[in-house]
């Protein structure tokens, strides 16, 4: 398969109290259209990735809402799959293009979280959890803490190993002007930050964020913008697993990631060692360690020690993981994340990432997860 990414755009991610969801979307879409050198009239369908608009904002009808806001009249859909909503929206948009139904489609990912207090957001996010987990009063940090504890027990992963993921991602974010946290943090700072759900601390966790991202996909393989390498999505795979952790036999791996990755590598005809740059779903530090193993960048149980040595850091590692700063430091407006990951990979593969450019990046991967691993979406992109 081969679908062209003609244009990309994102807002700054962060605590954007002065900006409405509508304004976020307008900004991201405007940037993507200019980038693609296209007009709104060229868009034949609209896919919106979002998780919390219903539960936090009491508005679910986002397809029509954002079509209205943009002033276009076309088929429009809201796609929901917890924190993988953005990736699933991209996947569905790709399917419609591959089916030959629409030629050029717009994908938006958007989330507005900081209007609400932490307990409300924590509770709303648990909308993606199992009933039994909700009744137990567990939170998403808590679910990933259970995975972390199991990983630490089996592979002797330490709290310092976890902290090293956040330290690296904060360093990358200093090079990304759109990131929420453009400052460095140290290992000691992570280790002494307040505990959210043992063993995960505040600085092991991605933040609550506002933000939007947009991409324009097309069967058209010719970029309208001159002097630029076109970027293609060459695999888009989705897999699911049980909603709750109690249904899983293995707590040190995310089976949905393993399954989707295997199919994606096969479809793209590439192997894990071919990946130059990856955006992975580091909603918590432990999630990036598990992802790097499940995506087969490193052997099972070995990723933590490689990450702490700088093997995924810009300048010293390959593949470079989360050059945008990841969910941890670029920010995690949940519905926007899966789309933003594609924006970052496209920017890298075009060679337009500036200070955070991964040298000679040809093949990139985006890994988006929903729930505690109930859904995984993998995209592989290539620059010719």
């Amino acid at each position, binding site marked *: 398969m081969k679908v062209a990414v003609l244009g990309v755009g994102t807002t700054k991610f962060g605590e954007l109290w002065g900006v409405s969801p509508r304004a976020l979307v307008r900004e991201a879409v405007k940037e993507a259209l200019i980038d693609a050198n296209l007009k709104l009239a060229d868009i034949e369908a609209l896919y919106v990735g979002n998780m919390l608009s219903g539960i936090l904002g009491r508005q679910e009808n986002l397809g029509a809402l954002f079509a209205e806001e943009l002033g276009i009249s076309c088929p429009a859909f809201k796609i929901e799959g917890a924190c993988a909503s953005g990736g699933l929206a991209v996947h569905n948009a790709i399917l419609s293009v591959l089916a030959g139904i629409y030629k050029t489609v717009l994908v938006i990912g958007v989330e507005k979280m900081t209007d609400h207090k*932490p*307990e*409300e957001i*924590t*509770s709303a996010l*648990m909308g993606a959890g*199992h009933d*039994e*987990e*909700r*009744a*137990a*009063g*567990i*939170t998403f*940090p*808590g679910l990933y*803490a*259970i*995975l972390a*504890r*199991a990983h630490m*027990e089996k592979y002797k992963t330490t709290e310092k190993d976890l902290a090293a993921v956040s330290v690296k991602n904060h360093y990358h974010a200093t090079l990304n002007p759109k990131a929420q946290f453009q400052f460095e943090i140290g290992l000691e700072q992570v280790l002494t930050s*307040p*505990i*959210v*759900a*043992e*063993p*995960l601390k505040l600085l092991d966790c991605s933040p609550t964020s506002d933000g939007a991202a947009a991409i324009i996909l097309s069967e058209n393989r010719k970029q309208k913008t001159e002097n630029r390498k076109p970027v293609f999505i060459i695999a888009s795979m989705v897999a699911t697993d049980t909603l*709750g*952790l*109690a*249904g899983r036999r293995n*707590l040190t791996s995310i089976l949905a990631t393993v399954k989707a990755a295997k199919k994606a590598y096969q479809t793209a005809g590439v192997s894990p060692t071919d990946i130059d740059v990856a955006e992975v779903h580091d909603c918590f530090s432990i999630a990036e360690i598990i992802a790097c193993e499940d995506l087969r960048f490193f052997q099972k149980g070995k990723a933590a020690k490689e990450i702490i040595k700088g093997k995924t850091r810009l300048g010293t590692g390959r593949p470079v993981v989360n050059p945008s700063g990841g969910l941890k430091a670029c920010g995690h407006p949940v519905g926007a994340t899966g789309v933003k990951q594609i924006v970052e990979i496209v920017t890298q593969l075009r060679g337009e990432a500036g200070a955070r450019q991964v040298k000679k990046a040809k093949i990139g991967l985006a890994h988006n997860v929903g729930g505690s691993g109930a859904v995984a979406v993998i995209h592989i992109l290539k620059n010719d």
Partner: protein
Amino acid sequence: MISPVKVWRHQKEIAFLLGKKGKIISWTLIRVPPAGYERETPYPVVLVELEKTKRLVGQLVDWQFKDLKIGKRVKAVYRITRQPDSEGVIPYGIKFKPI
């Protein structure tokens, strides 16, 4: 609102689990709770394997820090799971107790 119908339907599954024994597979201690659980914070949530078959996630009650370890034996008990709302329906469910 906690739906009374939902509570009633859920009760049928609980009787089967009461008193069953198992061990902790993994655990966490929640310090930042979701809405409705603020009063109990901090509280441990454990993933338990019951009699080597069924796995369940639930809160640990009557606990001490020494109980928070993988392999610790626990028993399923009946407890109020969250604060009742204005409808007055009290939601009960399974929690675990160290043995």
